[in-house]
């Protein structure tokens, strides 16, 4: 399966769980970030059944996901079905 996004792409995270699979933290739902790392499809048979969609590490400004205004960042692993592309200038 090809990864849809590349490093640097602006993305937003779905607000609602698209597949019923819970492994995306609530505090980034509906938030915008930038693709930081592209992992692709990872095999992890001891961990879960079946194959998950491609995985990304998405970089969020701390101020996007919390009330703290430090110039820091939170990098979160998110599977592809949670992400949609965002136009960079929007």
């Amino acid at each position, binding site marked *: 399966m090809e990864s849809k996004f590349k490093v640097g792409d602006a993305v937003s995270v779905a607000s609602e769980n698209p597949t019923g699979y819970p492994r995306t933290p609530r505090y980034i739902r509906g938030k915008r970030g930038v693709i930081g790392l592209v*992992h692709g499809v*990872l095999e992890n048979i*001891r961990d879960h059944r079946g194959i*998950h969609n491609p995985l990304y*590490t998405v970089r969020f400004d701390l101020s996007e996901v919390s009330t703290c205004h430090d110039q820091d*960042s939170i*990098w*979160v*692993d998110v599977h592809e079905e949670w992400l949609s592309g965002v136009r960079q200038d929007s």
Partner: protein
Amino acid sequence: MSGKHGHKPFEGHMHDFEAHIRAVEEDLEYYRAKRFEPRIFYLIRRGVVTFSDLLNARVALKRSNQFFKPRKPQGKNIEARVRYLEEWLDEYVKGIALVSARAVEAMDMVTEDNRKERGDYDDFFRFKKKEHRGTLEERMVSLEQDLTNYQELLEVFVQALIKRGWSTRRELKESWKQLHEERPWAGGVIVAKAWTDPAFKQALLSTGREALREMGVHQGKVGKLVVVENTDKVHNVVVCTLCSCYPYDILGDTPWWYKHESYRTNIVQNPRACVKEMFQLEIPAAKEVQVYDSTSDVRYFVLPQRPAGTEGMSEEELAKLVTVDSLIGAGYALEPSQQKKAMKLGAAPESPRVRPD
């Protein structure tokens, strides 16, 4: 010091008994309520063992056929009691690792099942953890009693596994021996090599597990490994806000605070304040803090900066400066002077090894 396996406070030395007791309390309840007892339920649901098996095993239990060495509270003074409790907890955790591995070998079981069934995603399914109150003395007595009780259930569970033919006493003895083998802590070995060998460091940062494989580091298969490097400009911190994912197959036991709700919540809300409050770590304003919130598919650890004043030190000496905290971003690697001090006070870098799935 006995707390080799991660049951230690994130601050304070042995003279800070309260911090040590708190660490034991937190870890003990974690392993009972998140690891062991949900596992029993898992197996009961699927008929691998039954409540009757456990009851029968308890009735048939004699001193002479016990698998684990029975323990009683020990220690003439507070320090000796605390150390003994840490050792006891360590045996309990190893015991869970032993039976967990055995009980699931023949089953189609994945870690994701555990996370669901023990309530990582839904509070509704959680096992309630005990609250600890009272004076230090009362809390120690309570821990001694809890460990006695919890250890008894573990013993009964092992007996039931043997009785049902899921394992033999001999196999279990062999695994038990392996769980006690002393090995240098991989965390220290890996970081020291990365500090002294630029080609290895490059490989570690770009290929993760592959670089470790070439180095001959013992590792399992718990997801992809990503190593993030601390520099003058970036300070990395690792967390798993959904559960407690950690590269335990390489680094051993997860420190108790890493699994604690307060760390998992606060570190992504206000990272600087969180590490300052919990670890007295003030990250310079000139550095960007990057917090990595992992999933089970990718496990992270931090490559800390090499401390000043370590020129000319051997890899073996350097490895001793590497603490578990520094691999999570909750601290820096020790400077040589700090290490000497820490050794003296009996709070040397931890060298954890074992953790049940």
